[in-house]
């Protein structure tokens, strides 16, 4: 629904926020983004998976292979300490950015 340009800057922040509360695997993260946005935000595997790798290589998330009974092994990602700091900063920036854009778009001329 939203253009890829609009979504590009928020992918990492969305992934970090979704693994903040508990570890999740890649497919679950994609489904959760779609569900919580009521279908307005979708990130395909070719976008989401490289993002997960980048975040892991930066040390913001950490993957761990888990095998549940009757299921195949999946890599669950959790937020690291560094990742929490980054997410907090990104969240603050995002709120400030949205506020600023809204002020510009909704404000009247002087």
């Amino acid at each position, binding site marked *: 629904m939203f253009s890829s340009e609009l979504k590009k800057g928020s992918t990492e922040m969305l992934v970090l926020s979704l693994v903040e509360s508990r570890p999740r*695997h*890649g*497919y*679950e993260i994609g*489904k959760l983004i779609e569900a919580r946005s009521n279908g307005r935000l979708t990130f*395909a*595997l*070719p976008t989401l*998976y*490289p*993002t997960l*790798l*980048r975040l892991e*290589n930066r040390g913001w998330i950490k993957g761990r292979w888990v095998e549940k009974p009757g299921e*195949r*092994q*999946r*890599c669950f990602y959790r937020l690291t300490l560094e990742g929490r700091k980054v997410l907090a900063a990104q969240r603050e920036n995002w709120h400030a950015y949205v506020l600023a854009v809204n002020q510009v778009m909704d404000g009247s001329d002087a």
Partner: protein
Amino acid sequence: MRDWDAFVRARVRLPGLTPVREARIVKELAAQLEDCYRDALARGASDAEADTHALRQVGDWDQLSQDVWLADRRHARPAIERLADRLDSHVPTTKGGTRVMADMLRDTRYAVRQLVKSPGFSLIAILTLALGIGATSAIFSVVNGVLLRPLPYPGADALVRITEIVPQYGQFSVAPASFLDWRRQATSFERMAAFNAISVTFNAADGPERVSAAAVSWDLFDLQTTPPVLGRGFTEGEDLPLKNNVVVISH
């Protein structure tokens, strides 16, 4: 159900990554595609529909491979290993004359891999080899120049150097009187000449200068059958006192 691991392994191209890293990525991508397939089944799709739905998640495997490689390049294998792989991919599998080359390339690749696995040992081995080769080359150069290479004179194999042995002191230079006696009395030698390395002070235009020289008997150049390039050598008697103010300059 499709073997998603084999499906992904056949399509994803990550030649620069370590095998362990590549296996992990294949496993994870396969897990996500299988999750997508099972999710579609759970929502009531048929096996074929669920399979198609999962397949549609990745449209361009080359682009995905490139994006994954860019995101994960810190796990890339050393450049020399990738070079060894490229060499190996060009090794012909045919028999015959190319077999030797193929085996050599394969052995080279194996050697490179082993060296890369143990960089510390490889460095020490290379330094030791370099030191050994360098030392051997230096020693050979000296031996070649001093012992093996002939002197630049005609009949050099007939040239001998005679020294005097003093029982109490060992090897000595020949005393001038002994030289004169030997030259007069010896029958085993065609000719004898004397040579004594000295240093002299040369009064150059810009000040005195210490110069390496040699005091020689008049017939040294005749013995060596090597006349000077320019001018003349010594004549008989020019090695006697009051007549010995003649020099031959070397270059």
